[in-house]
């Protein structure tokens, strides 16, 4: 009698161990797949807007220094001597007062190549020879309207649907390479020949937004 009870008890105990083992493995599997699904569902879709976008096809995108001149003082500006295109630039000089580099502060927009002059640069002993280079400038404001932070490397830009360009290759961020929720970025993209002038399109993940260039 005692032996039978003992045998029965052992069989029941082992059976319970088997059931427990099966249940443990099944629950572990369920938890693992459940956590994976929660992590997948946690990734929100990026959303953003192109608030405005405009392109100027007669902008001054570079200044060639054929002759830096001499005797210039710092603090002056380089302007266009003709037209009201709005070009402006600053410059740096070396020890003899020659202009060595130019930083464009306003690209302007011109129908023909303007002549450049230095204003407020003192009394030069030799006049600099500066030549404007015309090209295209695209200005755009874009806003991250979603809840996710977007890396600049994840943003692709297209002009007239062509020439895919990474946003990070033409945008110089002031601090980091991240586009935070609610942040508006000002794009100032200039080149001697941007490949389109009708539409700007941005693609981030599965989200694509287009905007006409006015």
């Amino acid at each position: 009698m005692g032996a039978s009870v003992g045998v029965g008890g052992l069989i029941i105990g082992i059976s319970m161990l088997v059931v427990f083992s099966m249940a443990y493995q099944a629950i572990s599997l369920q938890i693992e797949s459940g956590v994976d699904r929660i992590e997948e569902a946690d990734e929100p879709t990026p959303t953003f807007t192109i608030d405005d976008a405009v392109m100027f096809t007669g902008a001054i995108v570079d200044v060639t220094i054929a002759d830096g001149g001499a005797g210039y003082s710092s603090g002056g500006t380089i302007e266009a001597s003709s037209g009201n295109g709005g070009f402006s630039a600053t410059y740096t000089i070396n020890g003899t007062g020659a202009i060595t580099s130019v930083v464009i502060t306003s690209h302007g927009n011109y129908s023909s190549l303007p002549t450049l002059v230095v204003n407020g640069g003192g009394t030069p002993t030799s006049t600099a020879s500066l030549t404007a280079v015309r090209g295209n400038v695209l200005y755009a404001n874009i806003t991250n309207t979603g809840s996710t932070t977007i890396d600049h490397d994840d943003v692709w830009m297209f002009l007239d649907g062509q020439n895919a360009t990474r946003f990070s290759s033409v945008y110089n961020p002031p601090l980091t390479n991240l586009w935070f929720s609610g942040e508006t970025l000002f794009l100032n993209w200039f080149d001697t020949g941007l490949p389109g002038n009708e539409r700007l399109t941005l693609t981030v993940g599965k989200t694509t937004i287009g905007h006409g260039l006015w």
Partner: protein
Amino acid sequence: MVMLITALLISGGASALLISEWSDAVRVVQVNERASDVRGGVSVALAGDPAMVAHNTTSKTITLYFLNTGNYDLDASNYEILIDGAAPPSSTETVLPSGTGWNPGDLLEIVLTDNTWTYADGEDISVFFVGVSERVNGNTHSATTNAEVRLNAFA
């Protein structure tokens, strides 16, 4: 005593067999579960301007961009693409920006050529793309996307 030992041996053997079989079953389920998870991480999307897809009417080419929106590399040379349900006879592809593997976040620029195309500017076409992932955990998975796009025809 003999009965007890016999019962123990039989029940122990049965338990070991059951646990082993159950473990095998769970392992198979886990393998499929992981494959399923990878499948969910393989995706592709049409990138670029769907309202201005470049169509060169001289060279008879259409240029399309596809973005790897998944978590795994895709095979840049193993894909199929249909334009209005027909496969163009010729295509060339370039991965941007690296030019090597089609990693997550990278673009695949595909230039399709078909000398029979007579599409006009502003015409809408249907694009279907299916790509294949690189091998992940011994498995490859496909990703598809389709879209209606408008051509920007130029000579």
